[in-house]
């Protein structure tokens, strides 16, 4: 199994000691995120998220399929993560590493299990036809904190995504092309975001947000908290690692809530901007009620 080159002892020491003095290599505060950027693709449902040098692309897609036999009233929703060797030599094609399994589980718990997407609305004909929504997450560049970036990308992609409109008439299901009817957004219930804390030192008393790759190499534990803008925890995962006082974990969740709300408002703004950009001269603009009144003027 190929491995990534570990940082040297000196590098590790340096990073750790700097953190003891609350100094990070890139000059950030301990609880400060790197600049978060989001670009939507030309198509609906493509979100390209950069967090410092970390870059994650998520693409949502929909296809008609048969629902699972044991859940005839639910649509299918899957998140597929792919960590390719392009990202880091430690990742191999078709062989999920531990990192990949953990990321995909976290995304699954954060987005899918928390019920962010209303899967019942994806069902078209009970037991026969439903939408299968699939989000593919591709990590393009890995500089730490993949989870937060990937989660943001997934949520952004899904909220941006439009699935073809359908109608049901007399037992005949019609799926309309984008030209016939404007695609419709998914029935979205809430937007959860992951906030990952990294703990350093033997006692785990230094807690840092948004660790870079280098910091991740020397951290002694981590905790990912997923929250939505309503102050609900969707998931907490501190999967082992250095023991941390319960009280400081509570503090971590509270700070995480602030960060999640921040991310939520950022995403809302970007989505609104994108919608405005697309509306310009779009099909929707032509057919809107205001246009109808133009001849009367």
């Amino acid at each position, binding site marked *: 199994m190929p491995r990534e080159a570990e940082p040297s002892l000196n590098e590790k020491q340096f990073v750790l000691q700097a953190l003891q003095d609350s100094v990070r290599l890139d000059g950030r505060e301990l609880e400060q995120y790197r600049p978060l950027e989001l670009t939507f693709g030309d198509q609906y449902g493509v979100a390209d998220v950069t967090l410092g040098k970390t870059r994650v692309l998520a693409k949502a897609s929909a296809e008609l399929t048969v629902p699972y036999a044991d859940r005839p009233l639910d649509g299918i929703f899957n998140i*597929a993560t792919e960590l390719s060797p392009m990202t880091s030599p430690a990742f191999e094609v*078709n062989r999920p590493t531990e990192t990949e399994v953990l990321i995909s589980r976290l995304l699954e718990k954060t987005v899918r299990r928390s019920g962010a997407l209303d899967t019942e609305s994806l069902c078209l004909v009970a037991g026969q036809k439903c939408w299968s929504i699939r989000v593919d997450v591709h990590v393009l560049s890995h500089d730490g904190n993949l989870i937060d970036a990937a989660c943001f990308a997934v949520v952004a992609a899904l909220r941006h995504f439009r699935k073809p409109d359908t109608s049901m008439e007399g037992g005949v299901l019609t799926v309309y092309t984008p030209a016939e009817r404007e695609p419709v957004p998914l029935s979205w219930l809430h937007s959860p975001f992951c906030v990952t804390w990294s703990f350093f030192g033997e006692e785990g008393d230094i807690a840092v947000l948004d660790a870079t790759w280098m910091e991740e190499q020397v951290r002694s534990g981590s905790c990912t908290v997923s929250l939505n803008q309503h102050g609900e925890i969707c998931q907490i995962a501190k999967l082992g690692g250095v023991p941390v006082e319960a009280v400081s974990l509570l503090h971590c969740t509270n700070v995480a809530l602030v960060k999640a709300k921040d991310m939520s408002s950022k995403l809302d703004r970007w989505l609104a901007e994108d919608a405005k950009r697309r509306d310009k001269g779009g099909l929707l603009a032509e057919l809107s009620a205001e246009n109808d009144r133009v001849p009367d003027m």
Partner: protein
Amino acid sequence: MADRRRINGPPGATMAPVFEDDAGQPEIKNGKGRDRAPNVIRKTFLKTGVTPSASGSAYLEFEGSSKSGVSGLKLSCTVHGPRSLPRSSPFSPHIVLSAHVKYAPFATKQRRGYLRDPSERDLGTHLETALRGAIIADRWPKSGVDIIISIIEGDQDRETSKSQGDETWDMMNVLSGCITVASAALADAGIDCVDTVAGGVAALVQDAGEDSTPRIVVDPIPSDHEKVLGACCVAYLPTRDEVTNLWFKGDLPASDAGLYTQLVENGIQASRNANRVLVECLGEATS
């Protein structure tokens, strides 16, 4: 199951069309039996050196039964090696043999997936056992050889229903073919063996009809007979008079030990027959 690497068929089952038999077929179904003598194996075609890129290769074909709709067995085998082991693997004083048996998706009535299922892995293990006895493994320390067999056409009667449980008996025929073809391919690859090993199948069968008593036949086609009571597949080295793999299945009373011995003897006989084909084929290839 979760085969994400390939584009799979649409969800929901599709069925291959089943055509109705011609009139008068039903009587043939039970009436038509085996048309060979009990100790004669089917006609076999064997050719080595069919895959130029492999170190050794062979192709084997068993003649189908005269009955319509019954395909024969078509196997192709490639041998890669001896070659050095990957660097991560531990030291081995012997050649590391790995056998890979895979049905083509279209080889049998039931479509086979791309991932190996338990029965294919099982065949692989049997084949490994059979070949490991034949290969002189200590001549190649630190090296490995891969034997890959694809079953292009499985030996199956399309008209018998799936639930008759014939598949298990078919596996014996397939295994015997695998052993023979792999042995030829190993010889083609120039890997030293103590002898050419060939597979043979013998079965205790009951024919249709009121008064038929169980009899032993070699190289059985399960659909030719009313019932197969037991069968064994033998991998046999003729010059050493040794058996490298024995697989028996069935239901024999322990009190009648003679039956078992007879069955194995017949299996060996079948294997000797197959070996003649094998030796002749190898002789042709070298001349």
